[in-house]
């Protein structure tokens, strides 16, 4: 029963975001601020994770390919597809759910508890539209870009680790990258990243916006928002894979 209460209120929150802005310039300013916060702010962690994801997948693939009948180019092919299909969109978004999600929930929670949201309401500002919509929109713009960067860095990390450890030559890796490449995989990864971007910003926004109590509750709701976002993200991952990759 509680689930339906939360879900209903979540939908009402989303509906409440779509009203005419009081001042478009201010909304645009807030949107750009969120783009910097979410996009540029997460670039460092995304880059580090992506390089290591690619490197580890190259080394582990070579460890499992023990047959001399399988060409070494296969390592590059597997690294490419796992990075594009799963690691970059899903793993990066799970990390971002922690980084961005907790930030959004605690920021909005703190604003709620310290009556800053009430202050905006009193001024006649639609707080759902001004505080939540720019966050979701900024995430939906920047997270797919981050995922594309992550794909490139992940594959580069795999190449770097493969060549450095003598598993595969750079030429063989490059040949493997071009073998049986399916462009639709990138489209699939982008569809996932748009969906995940929405999940990892709207759920924490909900938990932050409706927080009640004090500092302890802000912490709790921040943790809960990350947990729920991750679960929903994995569920969406399964559903999208089932819908878009099975024929």
């Amino acid at each position, binding site marked *: 029963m509680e689930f339906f209460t939360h879900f209903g209120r979540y939908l009402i929150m989303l509906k409440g975001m779509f009203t005419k802005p009081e001042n478009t310039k201010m909304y645009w300013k807030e949107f750009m601020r969120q783009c910097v916060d979410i996009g540029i702010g997460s670039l460092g962690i995304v880059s580090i994770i992506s390089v290591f994801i690619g490197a580890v997948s190259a080394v582990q693939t070579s460890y499992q390919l023990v047959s001399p009948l399988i060409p070494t180019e296969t390592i590059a092919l597997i690294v490419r597809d796992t990075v594009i299909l799963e690691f970059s969109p899903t793993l990066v978004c799970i990390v971002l759910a922690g980084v961005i999600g907790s930030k959004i929930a605690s920021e909005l929670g703190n604003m709620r508890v*310290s009556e800053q949201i009430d*202050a905006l309401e009193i*001024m006649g500002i639609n707080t759902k539209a001004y505080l939540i919509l720019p966050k979701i929109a900024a995430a939906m713009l920047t997270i797919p870009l981050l995922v594309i960067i992550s794909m490139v860095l992940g594959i580069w990390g795999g190449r770097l680790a493969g060549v450095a450890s003598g598993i595969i030559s750079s030429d063989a890796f490059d040949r493997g990258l071009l073998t049986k490449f399916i462009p639709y995989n990138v489209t699939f990864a982008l569809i996932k990243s748009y969906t995940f971007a929405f999940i990892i910003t709207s759920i924490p926004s909900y938990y932050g916006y409706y927080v009640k109590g004090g500092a302890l509750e802000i912490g709790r709701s921040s943790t809960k928002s990350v947990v729920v976002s991750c679960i929903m993200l994995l569920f969406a991952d399964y559903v999208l894979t089932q819908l878009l990759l099975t024929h």
Partner: protein
Amino acid sequence: MIEFINIGKQFGENKVLSEVSHVMQTGKCNLIIGTSGSGKTVLQKCLVGLFEPDRGEIFYDGISFTEMNNQSRKGLRQQIGMLFQGSALFDSLTVEQNIMFPLEMFSKMNYGEKKIRVNEVLARVNLEDANNKFPSELSGGMKKRVGIARAIVLNPKYLFCDEPNSGLDPQTSLVIDKLIFDITKEFNMTTVINTHDMNSVMEIGENILYMYQGKKEWTGNNEEIIFSKNERLNEFIFASKFLQDAKDMRMLEAKGIISDDRNMEEILKNGDKLSN
């Protein structure tokens, strides 16, 4: 003028407001007082639209607030300023940006005009040099003054203050009270103050509504409150021996038994008359 008629509000089984009616007068400091949990904050939140009352009607200068659609409410809210208990300043913005925020959102002024207006209101609250400070660098009293400056920057017709003196020392409380009182007179605003600070009641209480367990218990002004026979009100207002003594003193003054520039000898000499 803000008039509310038979306002009722309950949360689940808990009835917080029961048919409260009153008129908040223009150009006066209207106080809502009462013990913690008496419903004064809920009443104020109903008046500004942060809570929807279950029953009753609210009129802003004769226009029904309860029947307004969202768009009209938005318009009205631009005429409302509110000072929150914790000041509710935006942490990431400087004092200047905090005060400029409503101007940026709702006015068509250029940057220079906005800056002039911000400096005007900062000067009005005696905070000329605080433009570039962040809320975390301000004292409690300064935060309240910035809160007041932000509340009045759009020249509102209605000013709401929720516990303006909470967490402040008595001297700073008096400064804030005087500031609110002066601003109310200067701009002829309808000011509604939610408080349980007795200094405020005595200093600026021109129209007082005393709430008890969600009901209107007593109304009057700061002179009438001294002579009130309402037991619950007296228990609340004159809770300590010190305040009871202060009340007795005011009664002696009113009866002409002691003068305003009294001294202790005079008071001791007239002590018997008081007990009679």
